[in-house]
C-alpha cells in the first residue's frame, strides 16, 4: 500500500463512511422497518457529516454547492478525482 498524505487519509475515512451508508441504504430499501439497520444508518450518517465538514474546511468543496469563495470559485480550484493520488 502506498503512503497516504493527510488529505487522502481523510478521504479514505469519508469513503468508508459513505460506503457504510450506501450499503445500509440499499438494505433499508428492501427492509424499511429493520431497527438495527436504521440505527446503523443514523450512526454512519452523523459520522459522514462530521468528516465532510472537516474536509470542506481543510481541502475545499466535495460538491459545487459547498463552494464558499468570495474571490475565486473553489469548485475549479481543486482536481477531479480520476487523477491518480486525488481520490
Amino acid at each position: 500500500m502506498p503512503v497516504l498524505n493527510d488529505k487522502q487519509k481523510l478521504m479514505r475515512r469519508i469513503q468508508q463512511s459513505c460506503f457504510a451508508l450506501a450499503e445500509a441504504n440499499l438494505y433499508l430499501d428492501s427492509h424499511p422497518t429493520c431497527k438495527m439497520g436504521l440505527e446503523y444508518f443514523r450512526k454512519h450518517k452523523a459520522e459522514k457529516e462530521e468528516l465532510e465538514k472537516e474536509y470542506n474546511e481543510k481541502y475545499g468543496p466535495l460538491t459545487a454547492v459547498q463552494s464558499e469563495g468570495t474571490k475565486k470559485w473553489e469548485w475549479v480550484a481543486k482536481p477531479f478525482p480520476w487523477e491518480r493520488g486525488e481520490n
Partner: protein
Amino acid sequence: MWMYEKKLQYPVNIKNPDPALAKVIISQLGGPDGELGASLRYLNQRYSAPSREVQAMLTDIGTEELAHMEMISAILYQLTRGLSMKEIKESGFDTYFVDHTTGIYPVAASGVPFSADYFQSKGDPITDLNEDMAAEQKARTTYDNILRLTDDPDVRDPIKFLREREIVHYQRFGECLRIVTDMLDSKNFYAFNPAFDKK
C-alpha cells in the same frame, strides 16, 4: 435530480500504464454487461415498478452504477496516461487510438460501440427484475474474467470491489422480486402484469 460528488466510491490509483489492459477493461464501460448499460437499465425501469421499495432500489442501484462507471473510466484514464507512439502501436491500442486518441468512449472490448440493445425496460416488474438479477451475474462473470487477465494489484483492487457490488446488487434485486411476488396471487404470478393490468 442528481448531484455530483467530487470523489470516487472506491479509490483508483494505478502506477503503471497498460493500454492493452485498458482495451479489455473498457468492456465494463461500454460493453454488453457494463456499468453504463446497468445504470440506464435500472434508471429507466424504475417508473413501472409497483412498490416504493422497488422504486427506491432501482433508483439507488442505478445511481451507484453511475459511480461505478466513473471508477471504470478512472481506471481507463490512468492506464492510458503518458503513452509513447511505440507503446500505442505495440500494445494493440492503436485501433482505439485512431478514433478516440486517449479520450474515454463507451465501447465493448471488441470495439463495438455502446448500444441500448444491451438492456430492456419491459414495463413488467417480474420480467425486469429477472433481467436485473441476470445482468448482475453477467457483470460478475466479466469482472472474474478481468481478474484472470491481470496481475497488477493496483487494477485488481478496485475491480474486486466492483465484483463484490454485483453480488450485493443481485441479493437486493432478489429481495425486490420477492416483494413483488408477495403482492400477487401465488397460484399464478404471471396471470397479469402488475404494472399494467388492473386487477
